[in-house]
């Protein structure tokens, strides 16, 4: 189709549009099915979605919610999602499916809390880098185990990372319910990290200062957002501008070809998983250092690492895509609470939407519909460009079973 001159749009723009078609179609599909579900069970989909819109983006609020506060909440939600999304997207490029971002996220949170509590007296210039680095190391260890097992004995990373998710979950319960990190006389909560381990908020915690009609202290947007954006940039540069990134992509496309090109496949797998785990661990550390300041029972049911899978898939593994998908899921999570409050629709509808997006993007309903109805969505004579990233992501997700056991 490259020979065919584009009608009006430059080819680059068309490619971007093609890249957006699949994710956008998936989101629309999910919202339509979600609306049907609400309607069938006797609810009002419009009311539900306006609740989501208000809670997520601060638009069209019926009950006088503060828009600035809602947007701030959404940002707090999507900050760790960006880094966890990178932790899933990077291994995708190497043909690895990291389902363990959740466990790595928790490991990072544990490491951050542990250091932040044990060395709580250190000043911020020393302690803050320590807890963030500690979180990265914690996550890297948690992802390194599946990496090593994959590279050495060929154990499937999907299964090993699932197992490690649960190990991390139970580890947190052990640590803070009667375990070594539990706050003395507290229950299901760890001691708080030292003041020096906390990421500063953008706004001072000063209730005499009123911003957008509310005291500045209620906005929890914190400087972790800057770290998340930086992480995204590191991801993009690593992948496209370094020899390691080239090796990762080469291994993802064909392990055999990568081997012939002199790339050590086991080494690349292990390094990819270590870096990926560091991203997820950093997300966990930032959640502790920036938002919660201690481990709580909230972390038993955390889903950041699972949301990250949806983020990476919906974002087609690109930096911009991950950012946009993170904003979407952050907004959905923030919106769910308002929807439940205003429209009386359980916030678990958000999970349903998320699952529907996953189904749709995985099955690529659009592609199949087009194959069956060639005229679907466009003129029959002009086959749209396959979204290259989408194709690559699906290929990567299949985890080529090429490595033959010795």
């Amino acid at each position: 189709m490259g020979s065919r001159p584009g009608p009006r749009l430059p080819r680059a723009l068309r490619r971007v549009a093609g890249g957006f078609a699949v994710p956008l179609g998936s989101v629309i599909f999910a919202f339509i099915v979600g609306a049907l579900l609400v309607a069938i069970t006797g609810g009002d989909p419009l009311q539900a979605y306006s609740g989501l819109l208000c809670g997520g983006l601060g638009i069209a609020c019926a009950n006088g919610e503060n828009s600035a506060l809602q947007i701030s909440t959404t940002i707090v939600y999507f900050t760790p999602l960006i880094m966890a999304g990178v932790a899933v997207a990077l291994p995708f490029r190497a043909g690895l499916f990291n389902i363990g971002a959740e466990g790595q996220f928790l490991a990072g949170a544990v490491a951050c809390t542990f250091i932040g509590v044990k060395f709580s007296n250190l000043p911020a210039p020393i302690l803050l880098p320590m807890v963030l680095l500690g979180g990265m190391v914690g996550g890297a260890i948690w992802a390194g185990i599946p990496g090593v097992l994959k590279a050495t004995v060929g154990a499937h990373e999907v299964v090993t990372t699932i197992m490690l998710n649960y190990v991390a979950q139970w580890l947190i319960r052990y640590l803070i319910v009667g375990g070594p990190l539990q706050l003395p006389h507290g229950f299901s909560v760890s001691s708080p990290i030292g003041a020096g381990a906390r990421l500063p908020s953008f706004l001072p915690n000063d209730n005499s200062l009123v911003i957008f009609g509310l005291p500045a202290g209620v906005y929890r947007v914190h400087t972790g957002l800057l770290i998340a954006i930086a992480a995204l940039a590191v991801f993009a540069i690593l992948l496209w501008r370094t020899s390691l990134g080239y090796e990762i992509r080469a291994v993802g496309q064909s392990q055999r070809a990568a081997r012939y090109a002199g790339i050590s496949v086991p080494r690349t797998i292990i390094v990819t998983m270590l870096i990926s785990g560091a991203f997820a661990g950093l997300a966990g550390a930032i959640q502790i250092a920036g938002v919660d300041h201690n481990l709580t029972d909230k972390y038993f049911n955390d889903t950041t690492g699972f949301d990250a899978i949806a983020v990476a898939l919906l974002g087609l593994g690109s930096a911009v895509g991950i950012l946009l998908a993170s904003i979407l899921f952050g907004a959905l999570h923030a919106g769910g609470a308002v929807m439940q409050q205003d429209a009386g629709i359980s916030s678990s509808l958000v999970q349903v939407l998320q699952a529907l997006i996953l189904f749709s993007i995985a099955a690529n309903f659009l592609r199949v519909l087009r194959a069956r109805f060639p005229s679907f969505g466009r003129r029959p004579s002009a086959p749209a460009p396959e979204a290259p990233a989408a194709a690559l992501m699906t290929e990567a997700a299949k985890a080529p079973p090429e490595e033959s056991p010795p």
Partner: protein
Amino acid sequence: MTFLGDIAHVLATADLWRLTLEAAALLLLPALGGVISERSGVVNIAMEGMMLTGAFFSVVADLAWHNPWAAALVGIIAGGLMALIHAVVSIRFRADQIVSGIAINIFAAGLTVFLVNRLYGLADVGHVGQANLLPYINVPLLDQIPFLGRVLFQQNVVVYAALILLVVVHLVLFRTRLGLRIRAVGEHPQAADTAGINVYVIRYGAVITSGLLSGLAGAFLAIGISNTFVPNMTDGRGYIALAAMIFGKWTPFGAFVACLIFGLGQAIYDNNSIIHVSQYLLSMLPYVLTLVVLAGVVGRSIPPAADGIPYAPENE
């Protein structure tokens, strides 16, 4: 008493082993489902979601009809329908089976809570009366055997069913033409297709069967062991079943042995007032053991050759 003395004391009680078998049966059903599905070449990490769906709908049905048998059937069918989604998405649409499995699990967790909210408001789901639970049945005479009678013959009806299904699944997979076909489709679908086997039919059947079995496990959990539905009540059991399947090297009896080991952990967990091991560390056991198995310490665990690869006929 000493720590080891405590353990010895608990291990000598029939109740511990009765609970072990009960917990093992609960894991065995989805594990058998996983074995069937993956033997046919469809990766199934969605047992968790199918169980949860079965648990929810069996409670809804039991509260409405006051009939545990009909309720269990509803739970089984609900699990099967969830599996049908997985089958359609991953067989018909050739989606990535892992993504589809994750989506099923998220979907089930969200949908059940959403429906609890729509059907029962934000209050509790309500409790099923004792008379309407799946019954515990004492096998006459046999249940009088000292120790063994309590362990083996004073169990829930679903435990007996699970043990029968264990033998049935083993025989079907390894002693019948159907089983040969399932395994052929999971190892080399092209060859099976050439030999006249309908790859799609076999895979649809296998995946749906895994949902039916998981749905039964969900019903057992909700209206047998427990008497109500609480959000996320499966609490990772579907994933432990997945671990058991791998631990058992994709064989029914291997999975059963794994279920017994994990079930013993669960039973000790329930007896934690006597043994002062941290129950949370104990809960890691299934996952850590499976990692150890996967690490090749206890022999390799190798999946069916075509496991996870969508089948596309070459002439399509």
